[in-house]
């Protein structure tokens, strides 16, 4: 039963409501006025209690007039940038890539506060139409610069039938208490092959929220990789819709968190039609007193027979205070499916460490090798060597800080 009295709103909610009203999003403002930000009582926010974690909402961003160094250099990539929500001019696009703008609100409406806020506040969306296979990596840099700001931005990508592409998004900016709310909608055409990587490299003071929605047509193949390696508070939604027979998605992610950080990957995959498959594989590495969360929900529609999906989350704790939380959920309405889930959690294996050291490898180098080995499954399928190398540097520098 729901308590029938108004919730007590905090300063973050008050600021949010004012911003939403100013943007003309009265219904979203009203929802927050009535319900407040979600607490642990809301199932999907049970481990990421926004009311407690999000103490303040900074003012809506002004246009950026300064830019920090690129967060991640991928040699040979085609670069695009959205800074403080505004789409920046880009260099000449590679053949077959059409860059454009559209209204914001790229996500399908669903019962989620972050999705609602993005829809209400993202004024414009960067659009990318890939008419054929694109060789260079497409990198979209999403920045929040200057004083602490609240930014909602949006990206919409269409990949044509039979095309292939690798799209990398990096999130970074100045070291201030920003709140970023980012949306990406990616439509993968028939038999198209797409790799989509989103990497949070924001400063520690930032609260980073992102929602990645995918639509897969017949025979489409998608690989996703979410990396949380920056913000103090991070939550990325992964919402694929397997909408065409033969579609397959490898949904992967990595939480890298240390002292005081909180990172959450929340996946909900809808297998909407028969004969689709997904392989969600997430890993969390936690050092110091910090928290990593992976929620993975597989929904199989009534007609979606022959769905094949297995969710897996593996945690590696590098300290006694580390907290790794795993929530698999299955919601299956079809009767002829193979679905499953699994979770493991442990410390660095002492026997493995001893074996490496007995060959002359010093302890800290041996630990690094084991951590790299733990992650290898996520990075090995990334064929582009320069990109693979760039991803590896993120992990290496994260490990370095801890030494």
């Amino acid at each position, binding site marked *: 039963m729901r308590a029938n009295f108004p919730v007590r709103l905090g300063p973050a909610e008050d600021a949010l409501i004012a911003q939403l009203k100013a943007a003309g999003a009265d219904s979203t403002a009203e929802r927050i006025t009535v319900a407040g930000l979600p607490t642990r009582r809301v199932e999907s926010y049970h481990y990421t209690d926004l009311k407690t974690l999000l103490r303040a909402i900074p003012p809506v961003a002004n246009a950026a007039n300064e830019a920090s160094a690129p967060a991640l250099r991928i040699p040979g990539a085609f670069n695009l940038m959205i800074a403080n929500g505004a789409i920046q001019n880009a260099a000449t696009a590679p053949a077959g890539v059409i860059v454009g703008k559209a209204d914001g609100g790229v996500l399908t409406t669903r019962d989620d506060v972050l999705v609602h806020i993005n829809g209400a506040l993202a004024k414009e969306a960067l659009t990318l139409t890939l008419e054929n296979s694109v060789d260079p990596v497409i990198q979209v840099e999403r920045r929040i610069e200057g004083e602490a700001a609240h930014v909602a931005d949006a990206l919409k990508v269409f990949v044509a039938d039979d095309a292939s592409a690798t799209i990398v998004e990096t999130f970074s900016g100045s070291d201030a208490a920003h709140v970023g709310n980012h949306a990406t909608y990616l439509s993968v055409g028939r038999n198209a092959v797409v790799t989509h990587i989103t990497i949070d490299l924001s400063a520690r003071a930032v609260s980073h929220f992102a929602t990645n929605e995918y639509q897969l047509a017949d025979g489409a193949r998608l690989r996703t990789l979410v990396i949380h390696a920056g913000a103090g508070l991070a939550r990325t939604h992964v919402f694929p819709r397997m909408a065409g027979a033969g579609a397959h998605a490898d949904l992967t992610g990595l939480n890298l968190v240390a002292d005081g950080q909180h990172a959450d990957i929340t996946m909900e995959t809808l297998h909407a039609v028969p004969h689709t498959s997904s392989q969600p594989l997430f890993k969390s590495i936690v050092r110091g007193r910090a928290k990593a969360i992976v929620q993975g929900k597989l929904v199989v529609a009534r007609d979606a027979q022959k769905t094949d999906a297995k969710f897996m989350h593996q945690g590696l704790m590098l300290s006694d205070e580390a907290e790794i939380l795993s929530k698999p959920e299955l919601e299956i309405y079809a009767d002829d499916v193979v679905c499953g889930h699994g979770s493991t959690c442990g410390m660095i294996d*002492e*026997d*493995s460490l*001893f*074996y*490496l*050291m*007995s*060959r*002359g*490898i*010093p*302890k800290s*180098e*041996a630990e690094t*090798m*084991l951590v*790299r*080995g*733990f*992650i*290898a*499954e996520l990075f090995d399928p990334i064929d582009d060597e320069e990109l693979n190398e760039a991803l590896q540097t993120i992990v290496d520098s994260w490990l370095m800080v801890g030494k």
Partner: protein
Amino acid sequence: MTTPVLEIRNLHARIEEREILKGVNLIIPPGEVHAIMGRNGSGKSTLSYVLAGKEDYEITEGEVLLNGENILEMEPDERAAAGLFLAFQYPIEIPGVATMTFLKAALNAQRKARGEAELSTPDFMRAVKEAGAQLNIDNDMLKRPLNVGFSGGEKKRAEIMQMALLKPSLAVLDETDSGLDIDALQVVSKGVNALRDGQRSMLVITHYQRLLNHIVPDVVHVFSDGRIVESGDKDLALKLEAQGYASYGGEAA
């Protein structure tokens, strides 16, 4: 007198409250191969782990000198750089770490610890190829994650290959024959024998005499209840094979 490669003096070690090594004394001069035989549970494998520096054991008494230097205070990696190599009875599988990457890291770490320059990639590849050829280890195996999905024989061959590459002054072979069929045993033994060069010493731990037909020891020691109770030449191994360990007392494991 030449400094022994290995000298163990009155070594006592325990795990939690249980004393496992109860006063081991052993001297291995340069170039000699010594075998330690004993029944399961006599403490043979513990001795190998204690030599290599596994953390689980507490040394309560005694000394271990490698080429005259006390190694008991050293970390396992420092012992390796000082010239100790342990061929594991059960080599550990390490997913996600390619065998080749591991070999390079190990070799270069040891060179670095000894103040030598790192090997260039071509020199490294040459050394690996050379070490691998004799043990029927091909490139495919080296690309696979370390020991993952290797058969029992492949794991043992990979251990001996590491030894050939790392060129230790003392190799401890812990039950290297376990899990090997006759053919694999011959390949492994051939690999080990090729590393006998009159300088390098070996400590071969086994409970079957079979291995010692292939790797012929200079001295055989009988291990029982945490210490060496008898030493002799290679014929002692034959006597043990015929009579068993019963006459040495202690309880069967």
